[in-house]
């Protein structure tokens, strides 16, 4: 249950700080998202630029890029995912602790991009793992990655702690392990994780909340 913003400001003027556990919890989480340190292709160069002094992703709480999936909250798929690399990407995602988020950065990561009709490139990483934010571009500028990061923060802020739409890490029954595709004779087996792709249609009440 949210506090009314007007009431909150009025109470703030009186020196009373009011919040909810939900807000406090999400405030902490959204300001300490640690990305995983790995790059796949040319988008990784833009991702590195985003973390450096000029763009400085650390301002948003993404302070350090963790070299281990166990210590990371956010996976930035920065670049082309080849079919040979896809099982390793899914495995890394499985190794991350909940709550975890994924940003698919660039045309290749979201759909295969210019290599879509090729024999060796996965047509978008969202075929195997759920993606929270997609960024188009080839490669996207650092500003686009910052925008995606802020979008992700907004989404974390809106996450309820209870109820039907609660995130996976608060749902004891939720499936956290995503099947790793096997290399097959002609293609990856299976070519698509049907539980993730095509994306399930959003529930009517969920769309209303966002709008």
């Amino acid at each position: 249950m949210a506090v009314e913003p007007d009431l909150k400001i009025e109470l703030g003027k009186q020196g009373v700080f009011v919040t909810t556990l939900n807000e406090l919890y999400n405030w902490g989480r959204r300001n300490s998202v640690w990305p995983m340190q790995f790059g796949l292709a040319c988008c990784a160069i833009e991702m590195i630029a985003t973390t450096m002094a000029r763009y400085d992703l650390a301002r948003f709480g993404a302070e350090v890029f963790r070299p281990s999936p166990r210590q990371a909250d956010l996976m930035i798929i920065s670049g082309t995912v080849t079919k040979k690399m896809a099982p390793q990407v899914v495995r890394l995602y499985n190794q991350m602790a909940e709550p975890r988020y994924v940003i698919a950065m660039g045309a290749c990561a979201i759909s295969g991009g210019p290599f879509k009709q090729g024999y060796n490139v996965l047509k978008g990483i969202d075929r195997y793992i759920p993606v929270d934010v997609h960024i188009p571009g080839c490669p996207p500028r650092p500003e686009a990655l910052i925008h995606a990061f802020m979008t992700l923060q907004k989404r974390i802020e809106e996450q309820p702690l209870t109820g039907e739409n609660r995130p996976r890490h608060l749902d004891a029954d939720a499936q956290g392990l995503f099947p790793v595709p096997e290399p097959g004779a002609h293609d990856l087996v299976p070519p698509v994780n049907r539980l993730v792709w095509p994306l399930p249609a959003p529930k009517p009440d969920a769309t209303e909340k966002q709008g």
Partner: protein
Amino acid sequence: MKTAEEILAAIKTALPEAKVELVQNPSVSGQHSLVVAPEDGLAVAVFLRDDSELALDFCSNATGVDWLDKETTEKVKATEVVDGEEKVIEKTVKHIQPGYLESVYHLYSMRQKHGPVIFRMRTANRTDQVELPSMTPVWRSCEFQEREIFDLFGIVFKGHPDLRRILMWDEFEDHPMRRDYVDPDDYEYEPTPHDEVLKRAQEHQAQQNEAKQAAEVTQ
């Protein structure tokens, strides 16, 4: 640097037994190439590398080409007896030139500062006799590139120290750069379909729709 004809003559004098042909390149670049029979490949390569005047000590590039069966039609005039009369009848005769796989090497000389010399070998056919001698013992730089040719074209290099797939995974069975490679039937929304992709995407969609209709009928 010697012209391709002079190199051919040098090979002929040094190795009179070797079967080498010159393939002219009619374009402006005029990069003529030497086609060597696979059994003489190693001997010719060693000669090209060790000859003091040529000294082609660096293989810059190795790649493959897939040549499909070539069908040529020829018009032949023949006299035939039709109804007791001799007539000249034109017939079209079809010739099928069998296809083959080819490996191409671009050779340079670091010592003499010249190049490239193009060196090619052809397999007997495209299906079962796809073996060629490996040039890795002659030029070390061929190792990974020959692995790539093996991976994408399926040419088996005899004498290669470590012939495994290099780009695709080991379980993969096809050779994607061959002309008759059929990629997996996996089409979704294609942003700019054209030619082959458009055709296959439409076929895929038609199949999907049929399957959907069939499912609706059974329900």
